[in-house]
């Protein structure tokens, strides 16, 4: 259900685990490494995590989703380590009886993950590097 790994993520494997005969809707969010940030060319990203706490915070997100919406299954996989342009950093898949709550729950999951889960990314450019969002 939750995985934080240095290995490449496979959206299809993740998505296939949320299907359910009682769910009519599946929504999947995939976050990838963009080639440019604020007009600067990205060479690679480096992700690190505070693993135990990150798992706990993702568990809280999933619990909140299940309280807010009638979701059947939720899977959250996040990659850490070094990623190059185009690689997948995060996959979130949600199944629910109807589409509206699948979209809402999946969007809640990625929005909240970006606020609370202790994972950090450093963008490495050709001429320097920056911890994303660290400064105002």
């Amino acid at each position, binding site marked *: 259900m939750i995985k934080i790994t240095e290995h490449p993520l496979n959206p299809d494997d993740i998505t296939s685990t949320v299907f359910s005969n009682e769910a009519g809707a599946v929504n999947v969010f995939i*976050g990838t490494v963009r080639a440019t940030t604020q007009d600067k060319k990205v060479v690679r990203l480096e*992700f*690190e*995590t*505070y693993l*135990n*706490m*990150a798992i*706990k915070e993702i568990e809280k997100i999933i619990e909140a989703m299940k309280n807010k919406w009638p979701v059947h299954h939720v899977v959250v996989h*996040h990659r850490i380590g070094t990623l190059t342009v185009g690689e997948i*950093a*995060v996959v979130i898949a949600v199944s629910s009886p109807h589409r509206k709550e699948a979209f809402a729950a999946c969007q809640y999951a*990625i929005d909240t*993950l*970006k*606020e*609370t*889960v*202790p*994972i*950090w*990314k*450093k963008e490495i450019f050709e001429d320097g590097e920056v*911890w*994303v*969002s*660290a*400064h*105002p």
Partner: protein
Amino acid sequence: MEVEILAFGITRDIVEGNTFRISLNEGTSVATLKELLYQTYPRMKQLRSLRVAVNNEYVDEEVVLSGKEEIALIPPVSGG
């Protein structure tokens, strides 16, 4: 008491290590710990936010530290 603190992301760069040790008076709160950190590492003041996790949970700044917890610095997260 002396406590070991875990540092992640940009705070790891600021303290130049994955962990560091700091001496605290008995009954030090998280708020006081943060003040001490800002004095020792002025660059931490420039962060957009700095949260402290105790035993893998975000805690309020009034929480008092016993010295037996796992304490971690959580600069602005940027997963996803």
